């Protein structure tokens, strides 16, 4: 190889630094040239500095590898989007973008929800439970109260994610269902949260009426942030406030633990007659829907969930007892115990197999969670701000949903 008489250009020298100069150098002895050429030595020194700087900055951006599971979920999400895109093209080609037959409002909502696949519903369920306990209501009456009590062991001022797996969820449900055997439930569930069969309670009201019913000024989103095609006027439903009481009974508990082969567990004496009072605030749900697409958006707003104990037991003792119940998954218990301000933090169960979550900030100092279901069907946000609990869930991307959430303002 010969030392080139004409200096190689910076591109050749840059490639040489990366041991990639093979072709570009074209047989030239670059090292020999460098020894004899001060100009190239200077150029190479500068290139090295620039390269080292880039390596220490761009090269040090943390990589994040997608697992096979994440990739599979992303594929599922993409398949859903492909189907949606194809369906939308078909509808447009048929010249009926709003092509669904006319339905009653109730049917419309039911249809919308039915079309949204499970992951979104699971994502939304954390939200719904926190806002109106409507999911919890799907349980048997006893379990419903128990679950509500468990959820509401905390005077809600902030929210925290509790990561759960399907197994964890099942364990928690089973354990809480068992609570029904430790005492008696009193209190009524308002008809509005009993189920969709209560048509009258599902009537839509104006935002002003709803504000009066919930006791604070409701917020609505900037219509410009709503997904295209959604009606700018929401259906507004209000779930009245209600209270449920759960009174522990030592005798009932003893009989139950005996019968289930756990005689070692007993209800401490001081729990006998103690009553857990769970006050669920009135909540308003703003529902934006559209027959023609899968788009749907729900905005929920409520006050605080408040829990009180009457009797000789403190809330601390009650919490310790509940968290110590046999059968509760240790991972979930550990997460609940890790919540520092447990008596004002509402735990939101996040099914980690289906939902990504991250903490997020909202306007006016609101702190909460942003949830994104892995299949791309939807996302949700839930946060606390100035004594009110807000939630937004919809069949849209988390980034778009966050824009809707950030735009909420009193109208």
């Amino acid at each position: 190889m010969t030392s080139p008489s004409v200096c190689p250009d910076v591109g050749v020298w840059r490639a040489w630094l990366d041991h990639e100069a093979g072709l570009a150098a074209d047989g030239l002895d670059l090292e020999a040239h460098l020894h004899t050429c001060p100009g190239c030595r200077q150029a190479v020194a500068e290139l090295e500095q620039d390269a080292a700087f880039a390596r220490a900055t761009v090269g040090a951006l943390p990589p994040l590898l997608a697992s096979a599971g994440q990739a599979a979920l992303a594929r599922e999400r993409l398949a859903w989007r492909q189907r949606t895109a194809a369906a939308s093209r078909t509808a447009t080609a048929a010249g009926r973008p709003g092509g669904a037959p006319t339905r009653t409002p109730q049917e419309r909502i039911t249809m919308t929800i039915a079309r949204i696949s499970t992951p979104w519903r699971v994502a939304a369920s954390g939200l719904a439970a926190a806002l109106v306990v409507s999911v919890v209501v799907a349980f048997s009456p006893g379990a419903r109260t128990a679950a509500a009590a468990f959820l509401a062991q905390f005077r809600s001022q902030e929210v925290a994610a509790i990561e759960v797996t399907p197994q964890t969820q099942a364990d928690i449900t089973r354990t809480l269902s068992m609570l029904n055997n430790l005492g008696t439930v009193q209190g009524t569930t308002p008809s509005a949260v009993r189920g969709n069969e209560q048509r009258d309670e599902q009537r839509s009201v104006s935002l002003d009426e709803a504000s009066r019913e919930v006791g604070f000024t409701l917020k609505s989103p900037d219509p410009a942030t709503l997904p295209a095609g959604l009606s700018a006027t929401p259906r507004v439903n209000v779930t009245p406030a209600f209270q449920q009481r759960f009174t522990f009974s030592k005798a009932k508990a003893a009989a139950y633990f005996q019968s289930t082969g756990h005689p070692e567990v007993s209800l401490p004496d001081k729990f006998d007659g103690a009553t857990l009072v769970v006050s669920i605030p009135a909540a308003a749900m703003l529902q934006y829907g559209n027959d023609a697409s899968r788009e749907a958006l729900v905005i929920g707003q409520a006050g605080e969930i408040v829990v009180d104990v009457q009797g000789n037991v403190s809330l601390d003792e009650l919490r310790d007892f509940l968290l110590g119940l046999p059968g509760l998954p240790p991972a979930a218990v550990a997460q609940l115990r890790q919540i520092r301000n447990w008596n004002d933090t509402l735990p939101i169960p996040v099914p980690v197999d289906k939902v990504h979550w991250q903490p997020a900030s909202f306007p006016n100092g609101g702190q909460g969670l942003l949830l994104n279901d892995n299949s791309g069907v939807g996302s949700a946000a839930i946060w606390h701000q100035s004594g009110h609990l807000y939630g937004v869930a919809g069949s849209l991307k988390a980034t778009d949903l966050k824009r809707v959430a950030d735009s909420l303002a009193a109208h």
Partner: protein
Amino acid sequence: MLEVAEAPAAAGQPRPMARFDALFERFYAELFGLIYRVLGDPMETEDTLQEAFLKLSEHHELQLRPDAEVGAWLRRVAMNLAFNRLRADRRARARLERVGRLELAAGGASPDGDDGSPSQQVLRAEEQAAVRRALAELPERQRECLLLRHAGYAYAEIAATLGIAVGSVGVLLARAEHTFRVTYRRQTV
């Protein structure tokens, strides 16, 4: 504690093309690593890749080209989408700061110590945000070349992705690294 009735399994789901599936499987993880460097947020990264693969799914002829060619196309499209996201969003700065805070909160930041070579350290969250901002300022080809090289791609792969001769990678990279350094310094002053 929360139980929601299972929706019926998606019936009549069309079986996606095997070729598309193979391409997805082959390139998804690689692209995720690359695009995450740009966006620093797993959700945004996934959203971006969804867009890129959705575009690919509409290019039936492209899917039949050799893997290397499709991979190059995907990298290019995904990087474009990612940088567009970063630049076009009026709230890019807010988001970068949010990502920074999240990573700090998650303990993702490295200690500030001077030990270890800089390239071995994970950048602190604010530094990452500054790097991404500076990258987004670079001309398209330069930033793509710079990102690919420092994400570990060989010159041949970079050339294929950018549609240039292998011999041209060095000069593009040299220019990109210099511009980057100047841009970064200017914006962090």
